[in-house]
């Protein structure tokens, strides 16, 4: 009986060694040996106040932009068709060029699924490049990070546009809020 117990103990120890201790040691060793700093975002340019943004609309609709103590609010009212846009645009004091910025980051909240939030980069005043067009089904803040290299844009930034787009005809008041806009680089 004693011999059996000894053999059993030895084999259980072997199983624990093979299936538990060795993998745990190996994984712990890896976690300590390989340096993992994680992804860090280093902002080169930020706008948290949204003070010198101007309104632009693509149709004679009721809507505009306002600054509510931080976040930028864009709204639409009255009867309107799908596809209509109200935009906030900024041309002064913006990041100089695209090459020195990996990403654009912004937090967005939208009133409903019926409107899309848009982020557009104008490389000159005739070439808008949409980098983000999204809808949200809740009234919560959503942080968005867009990697600019994917869009293969180059040159200077002439204008940044944050806007809202009506998806279908409606007469319901809608709005989109933007905050914590930044450009910067990924670091890891």
């Amino acid at each position: 009986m004693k011999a059996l117990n000894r053999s059993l103990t030895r084999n259980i120890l072997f199983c624990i060694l093979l299936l538990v201790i060795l993998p745990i040691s190996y994984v712990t060793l890896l976690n300590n040996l390989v340096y993992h700093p994680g992804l860090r975002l280093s902002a080169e340019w930020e706008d948290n106040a949204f003070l010198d943004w101007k309104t632009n609309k693509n149709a004679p609709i009721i809507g505009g932009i306002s600054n509510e103590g931080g976040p930028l609010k864009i709204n639409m009212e009255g009867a309107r068709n799908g596809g209509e846009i109200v935009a906030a645009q900024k041309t002064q004091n913006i990041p100089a060029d695209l090459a020195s910025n990996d990403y654009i980051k912004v937090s967005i909240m939208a009133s409903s699924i019926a409107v899309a939030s848009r982020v557009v980069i104008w490389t000159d005043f005739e070439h808008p490049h949409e980098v983000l067009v999204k809808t949200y089904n809740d009234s919560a803040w959503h942080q968005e990070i867009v990697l600019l290299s994917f869009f293969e844009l180059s040159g200077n930034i002439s204008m940044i546009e944050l806007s809202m787009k009506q998806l279908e005809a409606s007469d319901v008041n809608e709005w989109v809020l933007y905050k914590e806009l930044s450009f910067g680089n990924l670091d890891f």
Partner: protein
Amino acid sequence: MLMSGCCIKNCPLAIWISDHMMAIKNFIQIHLNVPNFIPSQLASQTDTILLWTVIGVSIRFLLMPIMAGSDFMTTSWISLTLVQKNQLIFSSDPPAIFFLIGIFYKLFLPFFPPGILNLMASPIGFSPTPFQVFVLLEPGIHTFLFLGKLPFLLFDILSALLILHLFSDGKKGLFAFKIWLINPIVIAISYVYGQYDIIAVFFLILALYFLKRNKYSWTAFSLSIGAIFKIFSLALLPIVALSYWKSQDKPSMTLKTLKTSSIIMCGLLPLLLIPTLFSVVPQYYESANFALPPGIFFNGFFGKTFYSQGVATEPFYSGLFSFLLNFSYAFQTSLSISDFVYFIPFIYALLFLGATYERHLSFEKICKYFTVFLLAYYSFSLFYPQWFLWIQPLLIMLLVENPRTYKKFFVLTLPLFFLYTLQSGTVLSTIVITPIVPQALLWPSPIAFLNNVGLPGSQLISIFRTFLSAVCIFMAFYIIKHSFWIKEKAKK
């Protein structure tokens, strides 16, 4: 030489491991009364089986925490969202996989690194690269990868043990078992890329296990469960039903029809019922970035419409149509009318018609019909690399039955397959090694690298893909010629 295991057997460590394994096996059999996983004709080979299991598991353990593709991170993200928020993220993958992996992850939650769990649960939207790829850079990623792939290891080892039972000759079973455990494609797909196809393949092997024993209802049921994870195994169901029909010599046609219908229902009911159950789970609104061009990065909702790879679709059907039609060659009969002949369903229909003319559909023949279908699929369709795992048990069966002939085909598929994976860009190359080389996330894809050094990257890789198609189609013809036509003529 490697297969003989004689070098391994002489190693003192191997003897030590083998001794312990033998003792553990004896203990389990004597004291715990666990059903025997090893066929009776291989009872004397238990130590070899255990030794090879240890070798197979060790190789897998080595790779599990150090590599993963972006798909693994997405699967983990969806499974964790289901576990933590009770919401299902729609994707082109079937929901069942997230429920199954979610069960394992629920158990692992206390052991997952908290930083990674927080990131996975955060509402950050990353475009176009999903943010989950950046999780590969986080501290504790090795623990996450190791635990996250444990479900694959379970199904993988169970598959290996089932393969032992697919052969009447124990030696052949043992040979197949060894090949499975060291098969680079099996290992790479599950533990380097982190794809979950091994779960569907396990149910395919389970179906073959039942088919070998003429348990048709269980075969159909296993195929159906497998199809819940990957639809491909359902392609075997009509041939199995046909085999059952042919095996029955009942005088009553009605009884024969009823019995065959019941087999088909066994194969369809779980597939129809289980997704319906999943549909009651609240959905997670993953917002798609409509500014991205249609393609692999464009997934999620825009407004109320769900998009898969940039195409508005129903999540459940998108995978099915991609598999059967979208990735297949198609001939358009008229330029003015949308009339297509899809090559893959066409091949399948031809094979099925061929099977109807067989007097008796044996287990081996059914396997070969399915092998030919899959070989044709890989030859003439765009296929995701992980789909190549589906055919591995069938190729191993061919190899074991006729090593002289199929060894060269089998060996040829290995390098050609890995070259084909380079078509997937960074997803199955540089991203995969990011956990151990974080800078690799910024490296160019192999095609971009070749282009940068002045070589035509895409064309070069496409040439090897063409060779892979040629090997597959040659193998398919070889099977047809030597297993279907010649023998039938000889019988006549």
